[in-house]
């Protein structure tokens, strides 16, 4: 199978994630969009691993690391959102102005 359609799909998924990050107002929705972008990167890694026939399988191993770091990121991110929600009673990103003067 040609690799171009899969590469274009991964690029489109990445752009969809960027659109979601910029357009969403709820912070949990922004974290969902970040997962979409990480997923696009994973697709690229695994595709190039299969395309280049790497004997060390570095693409697959890097995508496993990315999945692990993404899981850690979601845990910390939701903890921070929960913390701000407890203080400000909102999960709306426009109201997260603690660092603005």
């Amino acid at each position, binding site marked *: *199978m040609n690799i*171009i359609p899969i590469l274009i799909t991964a690029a489109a*998924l990445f752009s*969809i994630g960027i659109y979601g990050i910029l357009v969403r107002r709820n912070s949990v929705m922004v974290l969902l*969009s970040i997962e979409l972008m990480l997923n696009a990167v994973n697709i690229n890694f695994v595709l190039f691993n299969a395309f280049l026939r790497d004997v060390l399988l570095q693409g697959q191993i890097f*995508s496993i690391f990315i999945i*692990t770091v993404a899981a850690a990121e979601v845990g910390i991110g939701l903890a921070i959102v*929960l913390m701000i929600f407890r203080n400000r009673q909102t999960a709306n990103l426009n109201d997260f102005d603690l660092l603005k003067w």
Partner: protein
Amino acid sequence: MSWYEIVSYLILFLILGTGLRVVLTSNVVHAAISLVLTLAFTAALFLMLSADFVAWVIVLVYIGAVIVLFLFGIMITRAPLGRNAELDNVNKTTPALLSLGIFLSMSYVLLTSFSGEVNVIQSSSIEEIGLILLGRFVLPFEIVSFVLLAALIGGIALARKDVALISEDQI
């Protein structure tokens, strides 16, 4: 066109469709469920690319754990369930133009740089992954396990109630 290509194109189409639904739907729970579908079809694509271990890791970690965390986050932060227009910013044209520009530039680079066919070997790579992960990549493996431990402790420390605010007779 072989069956392999037909199924691959179908999976790619479904990945894009469900991914678009994640950012376009006005219902938070629907967005999370669409992300489940996107990840499931990505796992199917990884199975087609003979990366079976990564596919099942995605099913375990993302669909099993991360989505549950997201649903908890949606429920706990009392995100407005059901349809509502408050979920998105008012200005949608600038993000759309920006993401379209990024997509077009990335596609231009990809189309001019890469070409070729991916030939999938019909074999399982789990045994090799285990040997490589604990052989050559054992140091990153351990570092990532420390990252997970730090995230665990950090999540607990952030999300629990502040000890200083609890009066001493409650402890």
